[in-house]
């Protein structure tokens, strides 16, 4: 069995530039991951925040032995967003991870990766992307392991990745609930999502933790953790695991996943240790087991 790779997904939240740069510098220097995806996926209004740091971050990651991928936006409606996607698709220095299909035309068949917000639910769809240059696909987080296995079997030419750690992206809208809750609109949002670097909790009227807001994106309240499911994912033929940055010790998260993937750490012990790396998190893996996504199935 080929060893499982680790991919650090893009930071989905609006982090201030210093936090963002420091995070990537530390990951570049200390984290045992193979690939790092960098770029704004959620909201194009955030684009300018890291423009000045981006080149330095990419350089540091590359120097740290990481393969760098550039992510494109998940929901593209504006003209300037289309242009930005096209620019990203046309550059040849780094591989692009597409956040939606708009990028395909401009890519013109060039090798690329497909991100988890693109709907790939079966091998036939994976093959549509493969025929147009996709070499790896991060599958939608809601897929059960039986589907993952069937897709991998049906499209062996592609390397499949699974969303293994982080609050799960559940929905995206043109409307910004995060701004709305603060009495603002998207056009005049004052970047309020920046005050919630790990997401803003949405509870039910009965006090249950349920969801979290990240600008126009809604994520799960729980943190998906497939660390105890690593053997099942390996058996299903998955090529790599995606770790999505949260406000926690991501170097340690990567270390634990690597240890479990290489058989040096028991999966159940890995899950227990993960709780120390991200103490405020409640973990879930229900989607993988065909159960409600918020559940933790032993």
């Amino acid at each position: 069995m080929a060893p499982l790779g680790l991919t650090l997904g893009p930071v989905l939240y609006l982090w201030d530039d210093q936090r963002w740069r420091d995070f990537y510098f530390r990951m570049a220097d200390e984290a045992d991951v193979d690939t790092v995806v960098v770029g704004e996926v959620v909201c194009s209004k955030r684009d300018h925040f890291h423009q000045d740091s981006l080149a330095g971050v990419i350089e540091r990651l590359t120097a740290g032995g990481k393969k760098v991928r550039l992510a494109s936006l998940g929901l593209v409606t504006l003209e300037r967003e289309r242009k930005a996607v096209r620019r990203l698709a046309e550059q040849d220095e780094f591989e692009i991870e597409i956040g939606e299909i708009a990028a395909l035309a401009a890519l013109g068949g060039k090798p690329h990766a497909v991100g988890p917000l693109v709907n790939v639910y079966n091998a036939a769809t994976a093959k549509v992307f493969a025929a147009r240059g996709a070499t790896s696909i991060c599958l939608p987080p809601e897929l059960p392991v039986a589907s993952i296995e069937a897709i991998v079997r049906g499209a062996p030419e592609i390397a499949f990745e699974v969303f293994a750690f982080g609050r799960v992206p559940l929905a995206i809208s043109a409307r910004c609930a995060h701004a709305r809750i603060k009495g603002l609109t998207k056009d005049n949002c004052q970047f309020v999502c920046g005050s919630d670097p790990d997401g803003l909790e949405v509870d039910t009227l009965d006090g249950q933790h349920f969801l979290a807001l990240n600008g126009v994106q809604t994520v799960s309240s729980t943190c998906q953790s497939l660390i105890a499911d690593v053997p099942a994912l390996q058996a299903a033929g998955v090529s790599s695991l995606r770790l999505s940055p949260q406000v926690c010790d991501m170097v340690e998260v990567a270390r634990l996943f690597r240890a479990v993937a290489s058989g040096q750490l028991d999966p159940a012990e890995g899950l227990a240790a993960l709780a120390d790396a991200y103490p405020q998190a409640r973990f879930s893996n229900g989607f993988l087991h065909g159960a409600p996504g918020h559940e933790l199935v032993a």
Partner: protein
Amino acid sequence: MELICPAGTPAAFRDAVEAGADAVYCGFRDETNARNFPGLNFSRDELTASVAFARSHGVKTLVAINTFMRAGNEALWESAVDDAARAGVDAIILADLGLLAYAAERHPELRRHLSVQAGAANADHIGFLVEAFGIKRAVLPRVLTIAEVAAVTRQVACETEVFVFGGLCVMEEGRCSLSSYATGKSPNMQGVCSPASHVRYRKDGAEMVSELGEFTINRFPANEPAGYPTICKGRFVVDGEDGYIFEDPVSLDALSHLDALQAAGVSALKIEGRQRGRSYVAKVVTEIRRQLDAADRSATPSGDTLRRMSEGQRTTEGSYDKRWR
């Protein structure tokens, strides 16, 4: 502009045809469509009979096969496409790229529409699908302003269709797993959002509590009707304050924008509501037909007929109003 009307049953289908639909859309009685609710939808024979009825009235039949093929069960979706072709439908409405590829290869002559569930919100996305799979029409997501609808319509080499009335997705369609997170049933794979099997109403003192799976979606005082627990229309608590944080329990009414949508070059207007009863279909289709046919639309206010038919009896212009965002 064509008027595209919903039908969840053969009886509603006939009502829609007689009330003035230019085309009626429906789905098979299984997971292949996004309104997979108990007691709804069409058998193969019912579809064939409905196509004949529609055709005798000069009305088209469109079949929504607009969920995503569950890996390992692709045959269910592929046979839906084959059977729709055999029934002689005028078009199929698809979202899954693998299924689009299948339909384009096996039934090249069968007209393919892109479902709103594909979440194609820009001209490059749609343009790619026109080129790759020969789609003839794209149903646009309910996240675009009218100016954006106009721009997309101008830039793509296929027709566009937009929603004008009915239930409103706040999230981009086809990319929402809020309901799967709460219930384990996926809108994309099983065709159900907030499935009735996971809905519970519970009395708590004077209040009625609506739940989806384990989660409270809303609480209603005794004098208020308890709404259906759709997550994006629920009431939640953020920062200690409760409210409808995603959207109020409203539905879409964009009829005041008919002239603008026509000027934008939109080919077809869609009414949501295959899960709604016959009286909804008959009344809504009749009223919207009347407004579409009126020479001077400014003289035909939408009025109460439609508002009474909408979810929570309240409506919004949704994303067509730029302030919605």
